[in-house]
C-alpha cells in the first residue's frame, strides 16, 4: 500500500493547524476589542466557512487564484507557477475551512478570562505580550487546546474544497479522503476500505486524546478548588 496519501494528509493538516492556531488566536484576541458593529460583521465573515459547503469555499478560492483569474494570472506572470493542483494548495482551502473552529473556541476561552489578572500584570509593569503568552494563554489553555485539536481533526477530514483545488494526482496531491473516493470510483473496493479504516483510526485517536486531556484538566481543576 502506497503511504503517500497518509503522509500528505498529515502534512496538510499539521501545517494548516499551525497556521490556524496563530491566526485564530490573533483574530479572537483583537476582534474582541473592536467596536460592536465591526465586531459583528467580522464575526459573521470569519465564521461563514463553518457553515458553507466546502465546495463553495473551493469554488471561491479557485475564482481568486485560478490560472485565468486576476491573482492567479498575476502570480503566474511574476513567479511562473500556478497554484491549483499542487499539494500545498490544499493548505489554503483547509486553513479557510478549519479557521472558524479555532477562532470560535479561542474567542469563547478568551471571554472567560479574568481581566483583573491582566490589569494586575500591567500595574506590575509586565508587557502586554508577556501577559498574553504567559498568563492569558495558560489560563485559557483548555479551550485553546480543544479548538486546536478539533481544527486538526477537521483538517484531516477535509475533502470537498481540497478535491476542487488540489485534485487527485496519486503521489502528488492525493490525500486520504480523495484517495478513498478515487478508489471507490474505480471499483477498488478493498483498497478503499483500507484507507477508510486508517482514517477512522486516526480520528478516533485524536478524539480520545481530547477526552483524556479534558479529564486531566478537570481533575487538576477539582483538586485546586478543594
Amino acid at each position, binding site marked *: 500500500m502506497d503511504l503517500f496519501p497518509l503522509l500528505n494528509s498529515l502534512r496538510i493538516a499539521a501545517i494548516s493547524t499551525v497556521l490556524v492556531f496563530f491566526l485564530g488566536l490573533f483574530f479572537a484576541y483583537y476582534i474582541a476589542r473592536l467596536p460592536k458593529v465591526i465586531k459583528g460583521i467580522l464575526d459573521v465573515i470569519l465564521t461563514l466557512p463553518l457553515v458553507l459547503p466546502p465546495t463553495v469555499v473551493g469554488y471561491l478560492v479557485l475564482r481568486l487564484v485560478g490560472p485565468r483569474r486576476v491573482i492567479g494570472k498575476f502570480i503566474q506572470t511574476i513567479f511562473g507557477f500556478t497554484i491549483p493542483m499542487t499539494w500545498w494548495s490544499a493548505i489554503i482551502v483547509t486553513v479557510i475551512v478549519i479557521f472558524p473552529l479555532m477562532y470560535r473556541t479561542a474567542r469563547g476561552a478568551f471571554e472567560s478570562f479574568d481581566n483583573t489578572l491582566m490589569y494586575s500584570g500591567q500595574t506590575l509593569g509586565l508587557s502586554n505580550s508577556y501577559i498574553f503568552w504567559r498568563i492569558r494563554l495558560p489560563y485559557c489553555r483548555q479551550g485553546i487546546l480543544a479548538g486546536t485539536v478539533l481544527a486538526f481533526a477537521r483538517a484531516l477530514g477535509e475533502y470537498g474544497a481540497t478535491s476542487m483545488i488540489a485534485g487527485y494526482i496519486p503521489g502528488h496531491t492525493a490525500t486520504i479522503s480523495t484517495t478513498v473516493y478515487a478508489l471507490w470510483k474505480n471499483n477498488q473496493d478493498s483498497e478503499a476500505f483500507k484507507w477508510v479504516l486508517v482514517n477512522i483510526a486516526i480520528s478516533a485517536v485524536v478524539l480520545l486524546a481530547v477526552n483524556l486531556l479534558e479529564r486531566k484538566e478537570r481533575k487538576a481543576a477539582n483538586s*485546586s478548588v478543594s
Partner: protein
Amino acid sequence: MLAILGASGCGKSMTLKCIAGIEKPDRGRIVLDDTVLFDSEKHIDLKPQKRQVGYLFQQYALFPNMTALQNVICGVRVGSKAEKKQRAMEMLSRLHLDGCENQKPSQLSGGQQQRCALARILVNEPKVLLLDEPFSALDAHLRFNTERQVENIIKEFGGTVIFVSHDRDEVFRLTDNIAVMENGALSSMGEKHEVFSEPMTVGGAILTGCKNISEIDIKAPDKVFAKDWGLELMVPEVSDDIKAVGIRMHDIILADQNDTTAVNSFSCKVTGEIENPFSYSIMLHPDGLDSSKYILMDLDKSEWNKIRADKLIIEIPPEKVLLLKQ
C-alpha cells in the same frame, strides 16, 4: 495613609482604577508625587506599566498557573534571573510565606494569598499602594488578624497608601484619615475622629453607621423639630443648610426613669428588641407619635436584662446630635 469609605457602586474602586491607569477618566488630572499620570487637557495618559502603582485587587489576582514564587518574581522589575529569584524569596519570607514558594495560589489559604499578592506588589517598589476592599474576600473570623498583619506590612512600606472599603469599622481601625465618597465625589474628608463625629451629609452618616436619621424643621438657633420622631431636640447650633439630624445608637442614654424634665429627655414605648452578640438594639416609639417610625438604642445585655421595661425614658445629649446636610 488615606481611606476612602463609600457604599458599593459609589465610585471608590473606579477612583483606584483611574489612578492605576486601568480605566481612563473622561477628564481631569492625576498627579503622583511629581509625575503627571493623566491629564486630559495635555493628552497625557501614562500606561499602567509606567505608573509604578501597586494595586491589591479584591480577589488578589494572583496568576493561577504560576507558583507563589513565580508570581512574586513577576513583580521584580530589574535584575538577572538569579537576582530576581533572590529578591522574591526575601520578600516571601518577610511576609511569613516561607515554605509556600512552590505552591500554586489555589493551594494557599485566603490570608496567604493576600500576603503573596502583597509580596508581589511590594517587590515591585510602587510609589503608592492601592488597596481595593482588601479584606472582603476573607471569612469574618480571619479578618481581624489579617488586618493586623496588613497594618504592619503597610507601616513597613512607609509610602502613600489609599485604602478603599465600605466597612466603617475596618476603616476606623486601619487609618487616621478618612474620606467619605458619595456618587463619585468626596463628601467629607479629614481626621477620622472628626469625620466620625461630624459627618457632613446624610449619606456620610449612614456610611459611618448612624442608624437614627430624621429630617428636621428648624425652630430656633438651638432647637429643631425631628419630623420622623415627632420630637423637639435641643442642639448646639444649627445653620440653614442643615436638613436632617442623626443620633448614633450608643449615644442615646437612659435617663432618670422618674424625671422627664431634663434636656432632650423623652418617654418612649418599647416596641421591639434585636439581639446582637453582646448587646440589644431596642426599638423605641416616642410617646404621641402617629407613624410607625422608631428610634434605635444600644443597651448592654446585662443592663437590658435588668430593666426589661415596656416604657423607657431616654436622654439624647445635645452635643451628640449630628447635624446633617442633604
